[in-house]
């Protein structure tokens, strides 16, 4: 059986700047993986290649054994680090749009989460605050029944109380066969829900291991290890 995600010899150059340098790794189903690294380490570049938004300079990515393309996009639910939704549409219209677009979209789930976070489905997106907009986007992404969720900075602009709710949403809403790849700087907020972490430094993987391994081998939290590995 092939892995959910397989990245082999992946290199990406922007001109003469190497953003990703010969990356090789596999992700299995049913895991929550943190993609951690300082600014400019290549996290978003890697994510965009997996989602088919950038072309690699060399190497390949397969999802469930298929190359990046229509088949891979069907099973990947991606939360970008910028807003991409139409500003004039209402939340409800956006949900309808997602229903049309993705066959695995579960509108009931979306409305349920909107209710719990107290977001009115009739409000227009442009009237929402930055944090609320982020919540809406995350709800849309997590309401799909995907195999792989890729979340690029999902909680950066969200208040701590809603952060807890969102993390719980992430834990409760993915099913056992799905995996979640989360890129973030807010390590201490999310490290308790991670299975594994990938540390990315200047386009290279410097560490890929289980989080409880870090805690028992190093006697420190992932956050503390991160600060040590990437000390400026």
């Amino acid at each position, binding site marked *: 059986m092939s892995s959910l995600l397989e990245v082999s010899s992946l290199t990406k150059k922007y001109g003469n700047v190497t953003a990703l340098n010969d990356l090789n790794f596999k992700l299995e189903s049913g895991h929550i993986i943190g993609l951690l690294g300082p600014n400019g380490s290549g996290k978003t570049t890697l994510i965009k290649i997996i989602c088919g938004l950038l072309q690699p300079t060399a190497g390949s990515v397969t999802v469930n054994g298929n190359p990046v393309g229509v088949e891979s996009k069907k099973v990947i639910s991606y939360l970008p680090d910028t807003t991409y939704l139409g500003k004039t549409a209402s939340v409800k219209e956006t949900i309808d749009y997602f229903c049309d677009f993705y066959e695995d979209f579960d509108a009931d789930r979306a409305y349920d989460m909107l209710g719990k976070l107290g977001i009115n489905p009739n409000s227009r997106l442009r009237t929402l605050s930055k944090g609320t907009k982020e919540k809406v986007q995350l709800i849309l992404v997590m309401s799909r029944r995907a195999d792989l969720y890729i979340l690029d900075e999902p909680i950066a602009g969200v208040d701590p109380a809603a952060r807890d709710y969102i993390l719980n949403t992430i834990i409760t809403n993915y099913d056992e066969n799905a995996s979640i790849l989360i890129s973030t700087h807010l390590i201490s907020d999310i490290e308790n829900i991670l299975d594994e972490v990938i540390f990315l430094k200047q386009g290279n993987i410097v560490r890929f291991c289980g989080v409880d391994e870090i805690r028992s081998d190093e006697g420190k939290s*992932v956050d503390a290890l991160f600060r040590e590995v990437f000390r400026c």
Partner: protein
Amino acid sequence: MSWNLNSDRPIFIQIMEHIEYDIVSGALPPGAKVPSVRELATEASVNPNTMQRALSEMERQGLMRTERTSGRYVTDDEKAIASLKQNLASVGVDGFIKQMKRLCLDKDEVLKLIKDNY
């Protein structure tokens, strides 16, 4: 209820300790049904895989058993629970003694403090 998990130590070990206290204190009585992995994971705000690992480890230690179709149960072996209680107590006391030694208190002074404050 908050589980107060600390990121410095393996989470599954802290989960096990938390549940062990629940078993010893009777919050999870002998033979009681253990909530599902997912419920517990949500309650503790941890990954279900981590919760699963903690519960399987407790099963391996004989503190829980799985019934194939109906879920997981706390052991009804009172002896096992009593010895768990002893273990937890001696771990706690060891830590306490170390702390008191750092304060340069001798045994009699500590015993007096315990009597006065317990």
